[in-house]
């Protein structure tokens, strides 16, 4: 178990190094640059040269890369050319919002998707099944930003049930500890602040949950249908066990194996893919920050972000593998 973790983390080093080389080669090819982005269209070549010198961009790419590695050794991702703040600080400011949103979306997708998929399979061909199957098709087809707009227009603007933008009502007196607003509110006992953060989360999380929800419903349904026909379910029935035992221990436990893998992969996607939802709801997470960074050709931020996402994917997949070992003894690592 420990050996697996260590081996996976060691594998991460060449992966990230290779990725960073690719990134440097690629970013260097992009037209324009941070200097032009900072100065605007009327920049004189002299001004551009001055700024490029200040940022170290006048050096050959390999020198820039070595400097990057040097800083990375000190866990320093450099300074954002856009805001002038250390990249690390920008991330710690923006990531909690994205993580909070992504986790909420995933919780919705799992809590709704697994039971829905299960009951759709149990009553195959029934109204619930038909609704779940066609609904999940719709969920995959509708673009997330479009769904986000509809949710916002209906529930925030028209009905006024939820706030339409941001993570927190402006002017609320909330103590910030971790940057996860719901968690902060619970930790400090400021339940009104936690509730305020929850209401801000509902609509963007629903919009973001649509695709993972659809996938989880479909996978659970297909998996349950398969397991229901397995011999061991028949054996369990032949023992006269209670329905609840047959369903929980023998059907669901086996049916959830592939779903767990999917949940892991989808979670990685949510962390990097919430850009559109975040901009519709002005959520201020990493997605909107990265969009700005791309416009500003903010190389340090982009490199840092992409490498961070790669790291997140590897770690999440490692967690999935470990979880898988817990529920499926056949793949357990010794």
């Amino acid at each position: 178990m420990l050996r697996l973790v260590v081996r996976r983390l060691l594998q991460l080093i060449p992966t990230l190094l290779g990725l960073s080389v690719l990134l440097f080669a690629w970013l260097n090819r992009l037209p324009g640059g941070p200097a032009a982005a900072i100065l605007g269209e009327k920049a004189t070549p002299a001004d551009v040269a001055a700024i490029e010198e200040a940022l170290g961009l006048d050096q050959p790419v390999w020198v820039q890369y070595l400097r990057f590695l040097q800083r990375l050794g000190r866990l320093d991702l450099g300074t954002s050319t856009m805001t002038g703040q250390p990249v690390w600080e920008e991330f710690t400011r923006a990531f909690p919002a994205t993580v909070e949103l992504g986790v909420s979306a995933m919780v919705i997708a799992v809590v709704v998707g697994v039971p829905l998929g299960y009951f759709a399979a149990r009553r195959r061909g029934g109204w619930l099944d038909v609704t779940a199957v066609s609904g999940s098709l719709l969920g995959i087809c509708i673009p997330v930003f479009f769904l986000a707009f509809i949710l916002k227009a209906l529930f925030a603007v028209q009905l006024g049930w939820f706030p339409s933008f941001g993570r927190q009502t402006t002017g609320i007196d909330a103590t910030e500890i971790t940057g996860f607003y719901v968690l902060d509110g619970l930790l400090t006992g400021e339940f009104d602040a936690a509730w305020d953060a929850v209401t801000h989360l509902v609509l963007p999380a629903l919009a973001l949950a649509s695709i993972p929800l659809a996938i989880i419903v479909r996978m659970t349904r297909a998996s349950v249908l398969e397991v229901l026909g397995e011999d061991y379910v028949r054996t369990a029935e032949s023992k006269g066990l209670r329905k609840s035992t047959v369903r929980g221990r023998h059907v669901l436990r086996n049916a959830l194996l592939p779903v767990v893998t999917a949940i892991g992969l989808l979670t990685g996607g949510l962390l990097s893919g919430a850009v559109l939802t975040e901009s519709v709801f002005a959520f201020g997470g990493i997605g909107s920050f990265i969009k700005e960074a791309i416009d500003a050709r903010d190389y340090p931020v982009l490199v840092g972000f992409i490498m961070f996402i790669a790291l997140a994917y590897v770690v999440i997949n490692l967690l999935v593998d470990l979880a898988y070992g817990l529920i499926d003894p056949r793949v357990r690592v010794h």
Partner: protein
Amino acid sequence: MPLLSVDELTITFAGRGQRDARAVDGVSFDVDQGQVVGLVGESGCGKSVTSLALMGLLPGRGVRLGGRAEFDGTDLLTLPAARMRDLRGTQLAMIFQDPLSSLNPVVPIGVQVTEILARHRGMRGEAARKEAAHLLDRVGIPDPTRRLKEYPHQLSGGMRQRALIAMAVACAPRLLIADEPTTALDVTIQAQILELLKELVDQEGTALLMITHDLGVVAGLCEQVNVLYAGKVVESAGRRALFDAPTHPYAHGLLGSIPRLDAPRGEALRPIRGSINDRIDWADGCAFAPRCDRYTMECLTGTPALTEPHTPGHQARCVNPVLPEGATSPQRTEATG
């Protein structure tokens, strides 16, 4: 009164858009207390469906059951699902064909044994684990306490089937149904498993309904044999009587098709020609007629009745039965019971 009395059981699968398929077409047989009865036939003759119907394990939708199957006076076919659930595991238990796929791969063997003890005998915790270890020990699994914590993939094939048998006998059922319990196992293991079943049946007085296509299993185990063809019993006799004088041409062919070591060198094997798909409806005549060497036009005039052509108690459903040497002309007495 027999423990289980199956009377004119029919099982029909609703055909989607096509005509319905009748898998079992009026099967009748009895199992007495403590008796070992064989249900023999080739793949597709309806023997497995029969066992699933008795256990109430056929899906509710798309399947129609007819006839009666009285177990200790109650009709299993019309019993409410909840009552059936109480009977399964306690009164009736079943062992299946493929021990690996019949065990839940992600649940330890111990839990798969104790769950039945918890459900029917109210045993939990240490008491249940002790009893489970005792059961595994009884079916011949060495080091049972350690095995309880293991998963099915860690056990050998024979051990898995033993574990399934332990689960089946956990509540001392009165009828055990074994559906080809040795088919997926090595020959040496097959013999051990059969030996174990015989031992359990002898010790506990459990009745055993043995479903098999293997005449070797029948010869070693069963007291009474029912040969099934295309969803109907075509011959029913005691083991000795059947092996000495197979009367229905199908049973005759089955026994004749067994390769013999003492046969002269170079003698060809004698299979029954065709397959079970070459059949006609029982309503039109004998379903075996298209494959039968003895068939006459008489075979195509409605379902042949079950008669006792030469010996009382030895029933066959045939108008041109194979008669043992020395037997006089067929007596054609209508079978009783």
